[in-house]
């Protein structure tokens, strides 16, 4: 790597082998091309999942061929097939064991909605109990459809991802962060030239004001 020693007053001269980009973008590019799926395959969708990983459809073309059976090594859970109520605590435990950042694909009609199994024993859509990023329709979906979902997920990671995982923020997390900002006195930061920061600070101030009222 070349090091830029002197920065001219208004223009940055870069050597040829230096590329400027957002760090978020670089992290996303790494993450999206190296998804390690956790195969939670419980039914016939699992067969299509295996076919997707096998030589003909070759999931390796998209960097997601490394199926791991330990949740500690995975960052993409593919729920392929129906999940029964008795299995649900297992699914939730595995999801919690996976490291951030992590994503979830709900593959097929059963995982997404319960499918034809509208009975007391089957979960009517896993998104009732764990977060889901992509839904794949089909009964079972063809490997092409699963690959499309993975491509779409890659697109989502590239567009929305951040190196600190801000895209996973929920309202509860945001409130906690804003409370932290309150303690750290955000006015010590010069936000005059950063409209995004200004909007963030205004929103935080609104949240604090709303809480105090």
């Amino acid at each position, binding site marked *: 790597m070349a090091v830029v020693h002197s920065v001219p007053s208004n223009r940055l001269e870069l050597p040829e082998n230096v590329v400027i980009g957002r760090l978020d973008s670089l992290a996303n590019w790494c993450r999206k091309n190296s998804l390690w799926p956790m195969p939670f395959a419980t039914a016939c969708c699992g067969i299509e999942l295996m076919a997707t990983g096998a030589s003909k459809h070759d999931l390796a073309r998209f960097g997601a061929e490394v199926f791991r059976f330990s949740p500690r090594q995975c960052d993409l859970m593919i729920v392929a097939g129906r999940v029964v109520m*008795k299995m649900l605590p297992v699914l939730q435990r595995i999801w919690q064991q996976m490291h951030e950042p992590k994503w979830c694909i709900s593959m097929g009609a059963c995982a997404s909605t319960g499918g034809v199994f509208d*009975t007391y*024993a089957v979960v009517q859509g896993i998104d009732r109990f764990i977060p889901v990023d992509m839904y794949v329709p089909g009964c079972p979906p063809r490997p092409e459809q699963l690959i499309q979902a993975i491509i779409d997920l890659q697109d989502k990671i590239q567009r929305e991802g951040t190196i600190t995982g801000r895209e996973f923020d929920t309202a509860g997390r945001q409130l906690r962060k804003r409370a932290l900002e309150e303690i750290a006195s955000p006015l010590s930061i010069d936000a005059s030239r950063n409209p995004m920061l200004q909007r963030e600070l205004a929103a935080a101030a609104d949240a604090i004001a709303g809480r105090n009222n």
Partner: protein
Amino acid sequence: MPSTPPSVDDVLAALTARVGSLETSVSRGQTRVVVPESLAFDAFAWLKEQGFDLLVDVTCVDYLEYKAAKHRYGLVYLLASTATNQRLTIRVFLDDPDPSTRSVVPLWKAANWLEREVWDLFGIRFTGHPDLRRLVMPEEFTAHPLRKDYPLQGRGERHNFPVLTRDHS
């Protein structure tokens, strides 16, 4: 074993001589016998002595809203003899409010899980069973879902699971 094994008809005749007349029928070449609940365990013990050493299955039918049925539950025991290849179906009818019968685990160890499954899904109690716990439904489940008066979509027994959001991970 005798040199020529007794036919199922002979076994049935001997059983009838022991316990009184029984309702029998033949379906697709297999003999079915209805045994009253009070006589069932003794009949099973005797049939085992006659060579029916294999308990193939224990299952149950709920005859609720079944017009021709006189009883609500019908237990079905499928017996087989590994020596003579004979098969025999024993049916025991039970009724509410306390459908229960004596466990056949002392005769056939295979009955252990089969009876647990019937207990789990139909709520038939097997007295004398060594470990009558639920087999397929979750432990805290309270209903017996294969009974015909149980709603198809359930009563929401397990719908109070914690919902994991991105906040939890």
